[in-house]
């Protein structure tokens, strides 16, 4: 039975101790810890939100940069194509030009050759005429008594002329 009877002395010490402990912990103990944990929770929430926002912003930036990159790539291909076409055109133009030029020169050269040939033929004819006159002169200068010898002379002279030519 004595177990169930509270003791006044112990009651005094227990009240004193518990109230002091309660006062100290209620002021400097538990609220500080719970407040810190809650503040930390808020801080973590805020940080997570900020990180989320930063992430989405980063994703936006990445998308934009990829778009820009793709556009640039397209542009590059386009420019390259244009450049190739232009180059081909230039080359073909140059070729045509060169061909024309060559044709022209060839034609000129041909015309010149033809003219020169004409000239040469004319010169030969003149020469022949002169030679003929010369030959005739020589023939006439030789004795014209023998027909045979005359003929031989003429032939020889002609040969000479031909070989000289």
């Amino acid at each position: 039975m004595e177990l169930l009877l509270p003791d006044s002395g112990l009651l005094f010490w227990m009240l004193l101790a518990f109230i002091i402990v309660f006062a100290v912990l209620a002021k400097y103990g538990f609220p500080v810890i719970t407040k810190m944990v809650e503040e930390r929770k808020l801080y973590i929430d805020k940080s997570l939100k900020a990180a989320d926002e930063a992430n989405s912003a980063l994703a936006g930036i990445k998308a934009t940069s990829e778009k820009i990159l793709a556009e640039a790539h397209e542009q590059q291909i386009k420019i390259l194509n244009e450049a190739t076409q232009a180059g081909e055109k230039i080359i073909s133009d140059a070729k045509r030009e060169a061909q024309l030029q060559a044709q022209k020169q060839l034609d000129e050269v041909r015309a010149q050759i033809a003219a020169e040939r004409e000239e040469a033929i004319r010169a030969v004819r003149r020469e022949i005429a002169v030679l003929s006159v010369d030959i005739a002169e020589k023939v006439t200068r030789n004795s014209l008594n023998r027909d045979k010898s005359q003929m031989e002379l003429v032939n020889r002279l002609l040969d000479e002329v031909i070989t000289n030519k």
Partner: protein
Amino acid sequence: MKILFKIIRFRFVQVLLLALALTAGMASRTLASESVEDGKVDVKEIVFGHIQDAYSWHITSWGDAHVSIPLPVIVRGQSGEWHVFPSSRLEESPDGSYKGFYICKENGSTYKGKIVERDAQTGEEVRPLDLSLTKTACGVLISSILLVVIVLSCSRWARRNPTKAPKGFVGFMEMFIMDINDNVVKACIGPKYKRYSPYLLTAFFFIFINNLMGLIPIFPGGYNVTGNITITLVLAVLTFLFTNFSGTKEYYKDIVWPHVPLALKPIMIPIEIIGVFSKPFALMIRLFANIMAGHSVILCLVSIIFVTASMGIVLNTSMTFVSMAFCIFMNMLELLVAYIQAYVFTMLSAVFIGLAVAEPEEA
């Protein structure tokens, strides 16, 4: 290799248990002689001697030598004078009294085990005003200091590192405190929990640390604080005060004029009024009985060794094994009970406060 380790471990445990049993068996012969009267061990004396409060802190007895820490006795006698003296004065004097004060040893007396003096006129035994720092009071102080140091060290850390996550012991304590705060206090009281959380947390950790210290068998622990009705009385009264001082109008209306048919009111009103007092009363008895019973069972199990000491070495040794096995089991159970009882006390207190502060539900 694994098997070898297992064998070695098994052997080690065997040797350890054997050594334990033998030393316990030997020690029981010397130690038991203390509480042995006519060759019989007074288990009731051992158990009650521990569970009840004492004026000195008894640690052990070796043969006839008692090792105990004297504690201050503070009494105000009939003369109205305060006397402060160490409890060892009572033991040193041949008749066990000092300045007229002595510990009542009469079996039938209501003051048994307490300091009494004789009234000058009538010669009857009377109880002086006794504010002695008894073993339990010292236990309360030790636990209180320990609790304050632990919690303040955590809160100091928290104040210095407001945005960091704690590690180690501080981290454990923070997790523990927040668990009780969120899952017990907040869950049971509701949105107004912040006002009551310091009290409920203090109550929880006060009970818990006292329960744990009670499980340590030697000096800085081993006191039976939460198994003492005075302690649980204070805690229950505080819960009662917190509950009833924070009661809303609805709470009191429900007690004095409950929502029941008129015919039931004569029955319900007394029940409600009794309920107000029976709730903290149940808190008080529950904690007291659980912890006291735990201490008693462990002591009884240890006493098996001493009871069987006179029954021969074989029986004694084998019973020592049994006793130790049960003791280990009980200590583990008590570890669980230490938490559960602190938890139950806090949770029920929170529920009572929660019922008192609850806003009426919109019908």
